[in-house]
């Protein structure tokens, strides 16, 4: 019978666990929240840890961020699994709205992409004047370049640079490798292979496994990285929390939201620059 007592004890512990988890679920459903599909760069850079609590405290609303590549974020939003979309590839965002999945696309902020690579710079891209010329130099010297190879905003930008550099996308080769992974994973690979890669500045600043990697090319208008925000269309997906989404978007684009973005510092540097329509910020 002692065994039976023990078994009962084990089951009651398990039952207790189920009970607490259902309690937690109940707790969560009471709180107001919206789901926002966004990119890994905004999550990994720590911007949201800084920005979102300021909003949540004021409006008593939780923003649940799913941080994935821009392509995947768009797919999540298209299926109606998010209320707000916050990503960085303008053409895809405009197409998203054009196809009726989103209500309106608005600029939020920008920063830039940079080309990082091994300190010794085998392709000598430091001397180049444009991003396209830097890519050309890498292609000509056959120095190893790690590409995301997914459908992230960063990869789409990289493809655009390749297009203007050599009129095509390089074929997978010993020097051109596709990681098929996120920005952080790709930086880890580039770091261990001493390879070049394109990254957004925020992810780079927050990345702690740089080893020999350095910023080797920056400051080209082509490298601008614009972030936009879109409310998922409630006419298409009835359950979209339209009002709540509206409140959040309004706040992010307000003077307060924009100033909060501008005051965020990573390693003492400003990595996001607010540029919402109609707001002149420094």
């Amino acid at each position, binding site marked *: 019978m002692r065994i039976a007592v023990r078994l009962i004890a084990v089951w009651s512990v398990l039952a207790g*666990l189920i009970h607490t988890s259902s309690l937690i679920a109940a707790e969560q459903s009471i709180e107001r929240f919206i789901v926002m599909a966004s990119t890994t760069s905004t999550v990994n850079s720590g911007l949201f840890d800084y920005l979102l609590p300021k909003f949540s405290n004021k409006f008593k609303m939780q923003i649940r961020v799913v941080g994935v590549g821009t392509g995947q974020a768009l797919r999540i939003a298209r299926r109606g699994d998010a209320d707000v979309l916050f990503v960085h590839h303008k053409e895809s965002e405009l197409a998203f709205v054009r196809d009726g999945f989103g209500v309106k696309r608005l600029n939020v902020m920008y920063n830039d992409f940079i080309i990082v690579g091994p300190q010794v710079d085998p392709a000598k891209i430091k001397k180049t004047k444009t991003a396209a010329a830097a890519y050309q130099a890498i292609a000509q010297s056959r120095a190893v370049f790690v590409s995301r190879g997914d459908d992230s905003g960063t990869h789409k930008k990289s493809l655009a640079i390749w297009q203007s550099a050599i009129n095509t996308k390089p074929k997978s080769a010993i020097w051109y490798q596709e990681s098929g992974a996120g920005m952080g994973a790709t930086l*880890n690979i580039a770091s261990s292979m001493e390879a070049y890669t394109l990254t957004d500045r925020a992810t780079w600043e927050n990345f702690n496994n740089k080893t020999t990697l350095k910023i080797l090319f920056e400051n080209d208008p082509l490298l601008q990285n614009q972030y936009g925000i879109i409310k998922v269309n409630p006419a298409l997906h009835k359950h979209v929390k339209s009002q709540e989404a509206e409140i959040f978007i309004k706040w992010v684009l307000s003077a307060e939201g924009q100033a909060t973005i501008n005051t965020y510092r990573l390693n003492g540097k400003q990595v996001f620059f607010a540029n919402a329509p109609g707001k002149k910020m420094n």
Partner: protein
Amino acid sequence: MSDFSEAFAAALALILNFESSLAEIVGLSLQVSLVAVFIASLIGLPLGAALAVFRFPGRKTLVVILNALMGLPPVVVGLIVYLILSRSGPLGTLGLLFTPTAMIIAQTLLIMPIIAALTRQSTVQLWHEYEDQFKSLGAGPGETVTALLWDDRFNLVTTILAGFGRASAEVGAVMIVGGNIDHVTRVMTTTIALETSKGNLALALGLGVILLCLALGVNAAAYLINEAALKRHG
């Protein structure tokens, strides 16, 4: 080797400073995996024993399929559950995507075949030994399955632990259906993936050490209970 010593230092620091955020993540990990194991056992144990006992057409095919399902890739399970729970999917109206419940569903589907297949494997031997006795006693199907499971309970603890190990270690499924949302669906494995992507390798490995310690704790507890029960039982 400095990478590993750094990782252990990170793990130690994490444990010593026991932050509430870490406690939250560890708590959610345990909750999701334990509840998944519980539900998967409720289905998997009787299913496995039934497959050991009853003869019906297609049984062998079912056994092969079940064994094959032990190798289900977590990402595939995650994707299937995602498509089902997505707002555009058949169960979209429930609004379960990106919640702990979705993670429990995914992990349950992932480990149920493991528990069922291992249970069948273990009880089929008992069944061969006692088949005649059961038949002479005229035991009904329900009684037979219950009696077999009860007789085999000490072996089945390992079966259930195998399920728990798989559940608590996987990242692919919970990442997709949970979304790794801070304070809502972030568990140990998704945190490890996130910290790795930030290049915080020591911290990621440190979290891995804590995850291992948790698994060790759960297994040690199960082992001790099992030993004590065996002793009393003779």
